């Protein structure tokens, strides 16, 4: 069976771009990805795309060319981009198509997301009494994790400090100035124990990837990282997820643990083989917990690993080399594909200033509402 390779990657810088719609940022990213591969829109056989708040993704078609290709809109919460990639992967793997584009873009208003209880199958009082906030979920989850596994407040700060340090070298990142540890730790609390520098913000951006069968890539004289594994999983019984008015006493695995296990199995390799990882860091604690949930360490080991700088550039396993969500912000539809974009740059030795030397295996993991996770393993 033919391998699937990523032959082109494009991004519209994350952050705030006044005067440019989310859709326009998606079109921009697709044009960048096509230019990166040296291809034309007319070379594309299919497209999968999504946005959460910036309209229907197939509205990019009139801007790029009405070539009649199948364009399937993907709407899957925070895993929208990852779902588009997985769909593109499956389309090629099936043998029906040889080359296509996956795209994700978004543009959110400033401030925390406001949620609609009814849309999530929850009663109105849950929102009215002020409990339907993703920030509260992340704070509750890390508060318990810190108490159970000996993670300190300082470690939360170190994760944010690293994000802003790394983003200095990532042209597509939003917040590209270092912020010192004391400033991070002493900033106003958003939801205890997390200060404002420890949370990512809703933002804007677009990412597109051109995926092709290895055979097609060879015919076109193109190359790129191979997709070794990719999987999405939703919340199982006993997991702790956003917007949960009650939990079962018997605790179970998380959506992240299921998705990562499926991805490792498909890739035939494990966490010990990874050279660089992009892990969902909606807030500092999420990166810490996801290190363990994806299998990179045991619970509590993060305290020492992070103190020793092992997840920093130059460390044993750099995490979130472009500053992650903390420094790039989170446009829901694009966020998961940004992680893959960054890994593509790392595996093509294009991550100037933040390059993990000789990186061969790169891993990414997205997590979000309503409790789902998507992981991808790429190989140089």
């Amino acid at each position, binding site marked *: 069976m033919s391998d699937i390779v990523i032959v082109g990657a494009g991004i519209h810088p994350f952050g705030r771009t006044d005067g440019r719609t989310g859709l326009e940022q998606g079109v921009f990213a697709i044009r960048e990805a096509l230019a990166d591969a040296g291809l034309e829109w007319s070379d594309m056989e299919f497209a999968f795309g999504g946005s959460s708040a910036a309209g229907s993704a197939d509205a990019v078609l009139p801007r790029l060319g009405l070539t009649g290709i199948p364009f399937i809109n993907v709407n899957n919460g925070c895993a929208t981009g990852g779902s588009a990639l997985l769909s593109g992967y499956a389309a090629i793997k099936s043998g029906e198509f040889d080359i296509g584009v996956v795209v994700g873009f978004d543009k959110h208003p400033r*401030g*925390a997301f*406001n949620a*609609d*209880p009814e849309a999530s199958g929850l*009663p*109105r*009082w849950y*929102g*009215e*009494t*002020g*409990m*339907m*906030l993703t*920030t*509260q979920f992340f*704070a*509750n*989850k890390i*508060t*318990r994790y810190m*108490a159970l596994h000996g993670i300190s407040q300082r470690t939360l700060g170190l994760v944010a400090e690293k994000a802003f340090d790394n983003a200095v070298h990532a042209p597509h990142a939003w917040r590209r100035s270092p912020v010192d540890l004391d400033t991070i730790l002493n900033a*106003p*609390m*958003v*939801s*205890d*124990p997390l200060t404002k520098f420890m949370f990512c913000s809703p933002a804007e951006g677009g990412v597109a990837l051109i995926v092709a069968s290895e055979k097609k890539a060879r015919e076109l004289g193109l190359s790129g990282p191979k997709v070794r594994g990719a999987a999405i999983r939703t919340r199982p019984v006993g997991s702790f997820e956003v917007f*949960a*008015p*009650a*939990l*079962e*006493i018997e605790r179970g695995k998380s959506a992240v643990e299921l998705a990562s296990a499926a991805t490792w199995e498909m890739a035939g390799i494990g966490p010990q083989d990874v050279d660089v990882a992009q892990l969902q860091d909606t807030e500092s604690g999420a990166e810490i917990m996801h290190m363990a949930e994806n299998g990179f360490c045991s619970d509590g080991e993060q305290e020492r690993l992070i103190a020793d700088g092992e997840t920093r550039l130059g460390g044993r396993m750099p995490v979130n080399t472009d500053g992650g969500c903390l420094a790039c912000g989170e446009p829901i539809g694009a966020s998961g594909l940004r992680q893959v974009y960054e890994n593509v740059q790392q595996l093509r030795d294009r991550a100037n200033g933040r390059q993990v030397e000789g990186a061969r295996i790169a891993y990414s993991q997205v997590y979000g509402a309503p409790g789902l996770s998507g992981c991808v393993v790429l190989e140089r």
Partner: protein
Amino acid sequence: MAIAVAENLFRGSGADARLLAGRSRQSGKLVFPCPQGADADDYDVVELAREGTLWSYTIQRFKPKTPFNGDGDEVNFKPYGVGYVELPGQLIVEGHIVANDLGALRIGQPMRVTTEAYRTTDAGEAVLTYAFCPADEAHRHEQANEGDNS
């Protein structure tokens, strides 16, 4: 007079409050809050335990966007606690946390169900939601609620 934020969510007020859950007639499994609408017929309404232990907590420091409708505007918004309390053998339930000192909360400490007037209607009526407070402060919050209601 105070009114409840929703039907079939809790009974009573202050230290006498009891949370209401649904018990599946088929599996016996507890669900909180009680399923409403088409699924409601499959569940019996049951009262949950009054006391449990703090499972986790945080403090909401900024005024949430809509549909939040609690008292206070951007300027005089009063941060409130939100956490989970494990009711032994039943469920781990999320709710507001009221305490003399939210900064002194500790995972595992005994907690008790209470109610909290989280907003006031245009007609001046207090709207109650359920909450949890440290078990040793239950008496104080009961008095506070009576004060609110008088």
